[in-house]
């Protein structure tokens, strides 16, 4: 199991605490990774910002959240493709579901383009790959880009979707994640850094068959095709990333800072999910562990889907399942 992630190191230094790097030990999570959490391993979360040895409860909770969200997403995608009368879930269906949130859609498009570009480059390096590609027909170049472009072209009424292709704005969330990773890695030595990099390389697309089983695709009438599975793997990764981002914000909020005028109001926005005996130990300033707690995750989800604010009736059209999608 690989752990990477050190956002939490970062945040602690951000709020003024010097952090001691946890000793790399044989983690209990490796056991869970192999047996209980087949796909959602802590490495993913470490790489996205959690502690090196995330809490088991948090891991279970995050896995649960991601699983539920993906199943719901898949079902909605199946409905959409049924509407079209198609036999498989195609990437177009997933793009359709994401059409409302421009930023996330752009991130997905960028990811698809990078995937195309990478296969183009890697193909040119190895002569065997080059031959295989020629043999399978040369319409594979930029196929994901073509799919995305053609589809968005067809559903675009106002031109804003197509404008995303030329859009070169900086993705703030991505930028923040990059900066976080950079801050984390600055203080690592090469052994830790090697571990960090290894864990970052994990993804849901590596073990595609396990991923499919986890989502219980075989029991569905309409199954996703290859590119759609790639997108789903990416969305799962994004969901974890979003959860970690939000949980870190929540945790940051919970710590009372000196001079903060709203410190008395913090408890009002933070609903305690544990009984009072646990709460101070679990959610207060940790003595031994700086990992993200399950309460942070729950609070993050609550805030994300809470119907507060003037625009809440108009955001997130996928409310009927009771859970707002983090990835789209």
């Amino acid at each position, binding site marked *: 199991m690989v752990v990477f992630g050190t956002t939490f190191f970062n945040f602690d230094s951000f709020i003024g605490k010097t952090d001691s790097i946890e000793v790399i030990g044989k983690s209990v999570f490796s056991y869970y990774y192999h047996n209980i959490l087949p796909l959602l391993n802590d490495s993913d979360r470490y790489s996205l910002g959690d502690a090196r040895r995330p809490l088991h409860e948090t891991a279970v909770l995050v896995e649960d959240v991601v699983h539920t969200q993906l199943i719901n997403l898949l079902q909605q995608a199946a409905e959409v493709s049924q509407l079209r009368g198609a036999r498989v879930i195609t990437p177009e269906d997933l793009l359709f579901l994401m059409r409302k949130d421009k930023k996330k859609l752009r991130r997905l498009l960028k*990811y698809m383009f990078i995937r195309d570009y*990478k296969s183009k480059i890697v193909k040119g390096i190895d002569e065997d790959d080059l031959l295989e590609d020629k043999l399978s027909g040369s319409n594979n170049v930029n196929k994901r880009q073509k799919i995305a472009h053609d589809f968005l072209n067809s559903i675009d009424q106002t031109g804003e979707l197509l404008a995303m292709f030329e859009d070169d704005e900086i993705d703030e969330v991505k930028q923040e994640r990059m900066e976080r990773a950079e801050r984390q890695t*600055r203080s690592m030595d090469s052994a830790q850094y090697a571990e960090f*990099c290894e864990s*970052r390389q994990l993804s849901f697309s590596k073990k595609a068959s396990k991923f499919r089983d986890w989502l219980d695709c075989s029991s569905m009438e309409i199954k996703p095709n290859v590119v759609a599975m790639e997108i789903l793997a990416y969305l799962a990764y994004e969901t974890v990333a979003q959860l970690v981002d939000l949980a870190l914000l929540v945790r940051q909020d919970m710590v009372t800072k000196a001079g903060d005028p709203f410190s008395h109001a913090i408890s009002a926005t933070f609903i305690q999910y544990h009984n009072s005996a646990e709460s101070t130990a679990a959610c207060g300033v940790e003595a031994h562990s700086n990992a993200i707690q399950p309460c942070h995750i729950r609070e993050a989800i609550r805030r994300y889907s809470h119907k507060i604010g003037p625009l809440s009736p108009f955001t997130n059209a996928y409310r009927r399942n009771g859970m707002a999608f983090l990835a789209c």
Partner: protein
Amino acid sequence: MASVSRPERAPRPLAPCLTRYPPPPSPLTVGFLSMEEEETYLELYLNQCAAQDGLAPPRSPPFSPVVPYDMYILNATNPETAFNSNPEIKETSDGFSSVDLSFLPDELTQEDKDQPVMGSKHETEENSESQSRQSRLPSPSKQDIGLGLNSPSLSNPHSQRHPSDTDSVQASLEKPDSNSLPLASITPMTPVTSVSECCGIVPQLQNIVSTVNLACKLDLKKIALHAKNAEYNPKRFAAVIMRIREPRTTALIFSSGKMVCTGARSEEQSRLAARKYARVVQKLGFPARFLDFKIQNMVGSCDVKFPIRLEGLVLTHQQFSSYEPELFPGLIYRMVKPRIVLLIFVSGKVVLTGAKERSEICEAFENIYPILKGFKKA
């Protein structure tokens, strides 16, 4: 092929030329070779001399100018070559000294003529010694190769090479008895600073993709039936896939007469391989020619020998790099000048691709090396 322009090059009596067409490009068959190839074969010869004299330069593995030497060995084992290695060397040595003389300034030529055979032999030895001395400093040799291969205007290829030889020859003639040439006499042609930054790491070529036009319609079925190591599956792909073992390459031959050759490890090997395929096609009865040989892509790789912090690199060079570790473990860096794509890995390995010339790869690596040093993971 430039066979028509050969006559005016007759005054350069480098070894007897084979007049067969297409000729096997061994170092001796200069008649049908272009300028750059002759440069390479001269270099080849000099390396050969250096090795012969036992002053073998310390060859670091990524030092690719050794390749022409390898190719020479290939040709030596090529059964079609009429000569064996020793006579080849002697002939080229005589040929070399006479070529050398013709480009030296008049005074030197006069002096050399005074000492006939001994002088030329001595000069050859001095040249090879100086060459080996040059080879010990990887930079000058590399630059010589660079010069030899990259001179777009072939007007004075020898004048570029020979000043370095001339200097060393002059120095050697002044002190004929001393074997130690002052280093100052070995003048590198490009500034040393760029090389010292790279610490002498030279990217090694891994794969070359080239195309050539055989300029005649081909019957793929006939080729597939009669040629060895040929695959043809018209339902899958409309080309014959042929492979040869030496140099180990693969070719895609299309019915229009166009051919793609992949897998070679140097420009010369790619050209040699393409010629071999062309010869195979010719032997099957098609009027194959060898037009517009062009290298389409070159892939090189090297190792900077220290771990690199990719997160920092992607942040500071955002507009050029993309790093998605869950997708691909390396950072993809799109260099604008020269237009090369570099794959940079945490371990310090760098792969460069998209080059049309060797110089582009070297230049790209020289550009990226100081940047990578800045993100060295201690």
